[in-house]
């Protein structure tokens, strides 16, 4: 409540020219705020509890959407690049940040997914016009700590590229359970790839 009050006073200060008017407005505003508190308006911040039942629930609630001010779309946010993380795919999985990524995208289309799997790494690509997406696998020897480190480059020539069944569209990662990758192949359906046996199966394995 106090934060809101402060915001209200800030708004007030901008719209008033003289100190007298500001002071008068502040007194009036304080009275209004107290009236609002007394009326329970401030309590609306509390989420409905389990005891409120359907009588409260029956009113649709959109937290703040209608009153939010317009967004400044003229500035593109540019957050700092993430700190190196050995457990996830590094710059080699992006065409903007590496020649490896550039070559992958050039050959197989935009990289939709990238991640670690038992014994290596995987990529799923969207494909290109007239060319379905692929599953890329990069195998690491058990003792190869450099390969297991996502921050090191994983050169294009060491990747293995597999075309899932269906000759469909883009390939999308769904899940990894044990050694089984579940993928969605565009305009075809779900497929699984067993990393230990190297085989695809159609359908969703539950």
């Amino acid at each position, binding site marked *: 409540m106090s934060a809101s009050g402060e915001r209200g006073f800030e708004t007030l200060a901008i*719209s008033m020219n003289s100190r007298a008017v500001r002071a008068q407005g502040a007194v009036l505003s304080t009275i209004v705020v107290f009236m609002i508190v007394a009326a329970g308006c401030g309590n609306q*911040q509390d989420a409905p509890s389990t005891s409120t039942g359907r009588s409260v629930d029956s009113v649709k609630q959109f937290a*703040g959407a209608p009153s939010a001010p317009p967004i400044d779309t003229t500035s593109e946010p540019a957050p700092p690049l993430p700190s190196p993380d050995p457990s996830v795919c590094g*710059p080699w999985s992006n065409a903007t940040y590496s020649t490896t990524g550039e070559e992958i995208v050039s050959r197989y289309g935009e990289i939709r997914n990238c991640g670690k799997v038992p014994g290596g790494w995987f990529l799923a690509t969207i494909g290109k016009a007239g060319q379905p997406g692929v599953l890329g696998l990069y195998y690491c020897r058990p003792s190869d700590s450099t390969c297991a480190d996502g921050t090191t480059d994983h050169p294009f020539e060491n990747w293995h590229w597999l075309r899932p069944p269906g000759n469909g*569209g883009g390939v999308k990662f769904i899940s990894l359970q044990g050694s089984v990758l579940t993928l969605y192949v565009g305009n075809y359906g779900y497929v699984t790839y067993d990393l230990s046996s190297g085989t695809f199966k159609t359908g969703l394995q539950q």
Partner: protein
Amino acid sequence: MRGIRRKKLCRAAVVSVVLSSCLLPIAGSSPAVAQSSTPIADFLDVYAPSYDPSPSGIVVEGLSGTNGCGYTLTQIEDRTVQYLNAGRPTITEISPQAHCTDSGGGVHYYTLSGYETLISNLVSYVVTYGSNVGSLWGGVMLDQEPDFGFSASDSAALASYTRSTMLNTPGICWYYTEIFAVGQTATWTQSQFDSIVGSPPPNGSWKAPQIYTDYMRNLTNAINQSEILVTWSTDAAPYPYNSRSYAVGSINGPPYQQNFQSSSTYTWANHFN
């Protein structure tokens, strides 16, 4: 003249204070600036066959929700109700697909009206059997993508249908668009993207775009939307979007805010892994 001006200013002051006292606490979000504030909590996508009530919030990942090609509607309904009955903030996700191939190689085709029926049944079941639906169930999340086989206009029509359905639900229940606009068969333009996600609620969806690529970031930042539920992934997105801070920090405006049953303010991102 000065007196009249002073009266007007005082009236403006009252309006300002009333608005800031009543509306902002409900909104709970700071005025939009160029960068998002960092969401304090994450929904975690959990596949319908699994049960994990430990995350702050759960997205029940239902995939297509069709018999033979995904988790069944019954699985999705029951899991959603189970989370709600356990008092967890919950959203239920469906990925409408035009066709798929089952484990026996059989091909199944699905229509838009079939998904409308599915969504209607899902909503009806959850509202009937879930506990505290109006304060715990965020509603239906639609994962819509060009490679799922429905056109942009079909996808917009299904989103619109979902909105109509959710209008009749209690409290906070609404719908989300977890859109990804790039596919091998098509890539949706800004206008197609806009038509699917719609205006800010209550006229359109809560936007939950998959921020994995520059294109998705740019589409999202170009829409007129007050709050965004950024869908991000550490283990499945390419660099640098496989960092939560990067994905969230790439998006303009405040994060999606919903307190569910808490008396504290909660802002959210959506974690897919």
